[in-house]
């Protein structure tokens, strides 16, 4: 019995840890949607761009300076996006803003690689690479825990706590939520829409940088980081587009669900099911809660 429980717990734990990493990317989507009503398709590209910026700057600067400079570059990127793309589109339909973010994605993908290169860059944050083995005994062979995954989990937890305080306890946070509800109404009561957008895209840029660090430490910094963002989509479908805790819980459910499915159901399908299985889980949840687990139910009177 213990022989079977050990591997199960290991897959479950591995899945939960992977889920935290998905949640880190999902957080960026949720932030921008929550504060501006825009589904930012460029979040994955921002993760790649931020991580590439950091890793290349670390070649010439110490980590702290490189991190600070990367944050500044992400803010500058947010400024450029606000000025050149979002400002001309104020009060346009959400779908038009979404399409604009697709354009931003392709631009950032190409520009980032042109500027920083297309190789795989190693991001060393000094974390131990060898796994920790816990619960041995009682479980034969124990359970492996990756230090990198633990780092990501702790970082995600800290980010969520910080963002929750920011949104609920600060004046800017309340203004962000007001803008999300209605651009025009927010402007009419004196909330500076452009400044709010700049702030939220900057925060999303810094979240992308942290997500890029976590993923980059694990995979190396390279183009595939942009594709990892696709893993965040089922997470936000499940967790709800407007909920920060939803992104975390959604990430955990998707991460654990897909890994368990791959190991225990996958062989019956020839393997390789985890990518689409994540969407199956998300769609099943949508059947019962169309707004996602923690999303806001939108009721419009007609």
């Amino acid at each position, binding site marked *: 019995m213990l022989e079977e429980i050990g591997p199960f717990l290991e897959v479950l734990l591995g899945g939960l840890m992977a889920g935290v990493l998905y949640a880190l990317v999902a957080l960026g989507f949720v932030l921008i949607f929550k504060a501006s009503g825009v589904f930012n398709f460029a979040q994955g590209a921002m993760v790649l761009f931020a991580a590439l910026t950091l890793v290349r700057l670390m070649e010439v600067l110490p980590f702290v300076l490189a991190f600070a400079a990367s944050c500044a570059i992400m803010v500058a990127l947010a400024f450029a996006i606000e000025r050149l793309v979002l400002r001309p589109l104020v009060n346009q339909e959400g779908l038009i803003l979404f399409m604009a973010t697709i354009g931003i994605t392709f631009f950032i993908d190409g520009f980032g690689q042109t500027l920083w290169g297309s190789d*795989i*860059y190693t991001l060393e944050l000094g974390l131990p690479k*060898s796994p920790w083995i816990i619960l041995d005994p009682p479980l034969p062979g124990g359970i492996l825990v990756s230090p990198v995954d633990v780092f990501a989990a702790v970082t995600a937890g800290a980010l969520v706590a910080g963002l929750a305080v920011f949104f609920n306890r600060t004046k800017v946070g309340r203004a962000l939520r007001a803008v999300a509800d209605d651009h025009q109404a927010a402007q009419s009561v004196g909330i500076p829409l452009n400044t709010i957008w700049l702030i939220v895209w900057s925060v999303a840029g810094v979240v992308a940088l942290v997500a890029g660090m976590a993923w980059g430490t694990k995979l190396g910094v390279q183009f595939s980081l942009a594709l990892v963002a696709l893993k965040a989509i089922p997470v936000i479908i499940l967790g709800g587009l407007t909920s920060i805790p939803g992104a975390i819980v959604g990430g955990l459910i998707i991460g654990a669900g897909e*890994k368990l499915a791959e190991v225990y159901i996958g062989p019956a399908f020839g393997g*390789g099911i985890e990518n689409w299985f994540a969407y199956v889980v998300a769609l099943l949840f949508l059947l019962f809660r169309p707004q996602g687990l923690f999303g806001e139910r939108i009721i419009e009177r007609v």
Partner: protein
Amino acid sequence: MQARITGALAAAITAGLAGLWAGSASAQGEMNWPTLVYRTGAYAPNGIPFANGQADYVALVNERDGGINGVKLAYEECETGYATDRGVECYERLKGKLGGAVAFSPLSTGITFALTEKVPGDKIPLLTAGYGRSESADGRVFTWNFPLLGTYWSAADILIQHVTKVSGGADKMKGKKITLVYHDSPYGKEPIPVLQDHAAKLGYKFEAIPVTHPGVEQKAAWLQIRQGRPDFVFLWGWGVMNSTAIKEAVAVNYPRNKMYGVWWAAAEPDVMPTGDDAKGYNGLALHPSGTAFQVHTEVFKHLYDRGKGTSKREEVGHVLYNRGLIDAMLKVEAIRTAMKQYGNKPMTGEQVRWGLENLNLTAERIKEIGFDGLVTPIKVSCLDHEGSRKARVHQWDGKHWNFVSDWIEADTKYLRPKVEAAAAAYSAEKKIAPRSCS
């Protein structure tokens, strides 16, 4: 302002005239050398050194020799991003330039599968050195395909020969476990039939675990490996999948010296991002890495010392750079062979196909062109479009690749009937009448 506009117009007209002149010059003495590359995207870290090797060899032939027998090579790249649709688009765009392409090397099994249907109609050879469809080694059916140096079936057979030897002989393989971690694509699936055949013959337990594109999600696969504890893990990955596999192997404490990559999973971009963790990792090698060969001396002298190299200087000699050099050299030698038959003028795809089919790279010729020690002799024929099927195993020591085996030749007696059966099935499906090679 007016002066600036006039200047711009003058520059545009001059550029246009220069283009026209170049066009007429190329019609007289240039051959269309299209190159499908991927310098961006998920597979760029592996695509770039290969493309650089190709570009440098073409530049070397143009710079040093003035082309092939006086005919310059008009090198043009098209970015595929390793995507089949973009690869086909590039092919369509480039195939007709300058009177027709000499050959295509897509460096993608997916693109190769798609182009295999197109090249017979366009009469352009498809050179897939070390990749592509394994059954395309049968030249009677696959007239236009040339999987020179070795197919994936050859690679799988060579790997099994090696691990059998390492294990102490065929009788020691019974009861062993081999797990294949493969890219879930036509490329990754190629070795499965051969590994299954050998499992039935030698008695080892075989398991295949797919990893979906681009290969960064492997945790579930490696947790399965941790539970199953196979004796050997074969890695059939590409791009970031390979370095991710090594990192995941570290995360589950799987020994790297029990891992064996195919020759597309055993280059610097696969091991360098993992630092010392890749020490002991093994892979197949179609050729050595390094710059201790005459061709590199020439490349440095004629290109890099004059600021004309494509790669970073320190990356010249990396595994995939050398493979790019070799790939281009094979095409150049096929064109030379064709010119002996058809004269020193720009060759058509059809003529280059003849050159490839009659390619006979002897040890003497290899030495003459500066590839001594880098490649072994290759002899292509109508029946055999593979030409040679040998590889060595090399191991990463943290800084360099070192050979840990001699050349191992794939077992033709076993593979040839399999190739012919698969080619016959393809010809029946596509209603292609096989050529006679007698």
